[in-house]
């Protein structure tokens, strides 16, 4: 590429005004950001009553819906035994929210909200790829019930 300044000198003509630092893809600004699916798991303190636990889950769901996220699935696994003690507690209320949003800053606001809430003992948010979205859809339909799920896999592994 010849710089426009040199072309002007060589050809002896004045080129139309050019941007000193051209933006490479100005149309990017107009493109709508793609929706991404996320999945977030959080563990609530077992000291809470069941109603309180429900309310806190609703609080987070509301936060997501307010930010125009598309809440796909909310699962409450109830009081579950944990594999190791967190804050000297061996059980916790497990909750799962699956949602889709185009706004990635929403994850930060959600996680700061988790940190502010003292009843949240542990949380994790992950992005879902195309395979996991399909998997979660099938999981929601109940295709992976324990007995059904393990039978074909065992057979396949032994062959």
């Amino acid at each position, binding site marked *: 590429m010849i710089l426009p300044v040199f072309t002007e000198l060589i050809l002896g003509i004045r080129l139309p005004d050019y941007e000193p630092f051209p933006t490479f893809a100005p149309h990017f600004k107009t493109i709508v950001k793609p929706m991404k699916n996320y999945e977030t*798991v959080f*563990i609530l303190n077992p000291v809470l009553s069941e109603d309180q636990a429900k309310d806190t889950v609703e609080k987070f769901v509301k936060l997501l819906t307010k930010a125009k996220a598309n809440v796909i699935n909310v699962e409450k696994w109830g009081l579950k035994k*944990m*594999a*190791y003690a*967190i804050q000297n507690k061996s059980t*916790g209320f*497990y909750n*799962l929210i699956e949602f889709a949003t185009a706004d990635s800053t929403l994850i930060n606001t959600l996680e700061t909200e988790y940190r502010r809430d003292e009843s949240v003992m*542990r949380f*994790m948010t*992950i992005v879902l*790829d195309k*395979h*996991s979205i*399909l*998997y979660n859809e099938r*999981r929601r339909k109940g295709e*992976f019930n*324990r007995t059904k799920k*393990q039978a074909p*896999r*065992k057979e*396949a*592994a*032994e062959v």
Partner: protein
Amino acid sequence: MTLMNEPVKRAEVKPKYCRFKKNGIKYIDYKDPDFLLKFINEQGKILPRRLTGNSWKYQNKIAQAVKRARHVAILPYLADQMK
């Protein structure tokens, strides 16, 4: 089950294979501890590819899933006797 690819008798060494490639499993769920239990030993350590026979791609996914499960206390970081 876990050590399906480990040769016990040297005489009859079966070729290793990746069970995910064979069965067409694309995603490994960290929420399913029973399945992940096949890829960790009694201490809770992730088994090497040498023993599980997984391909590099799926071994990495297994490792990712196990680590996620550990973070949300579905699997332990340390254990004495898991199985």
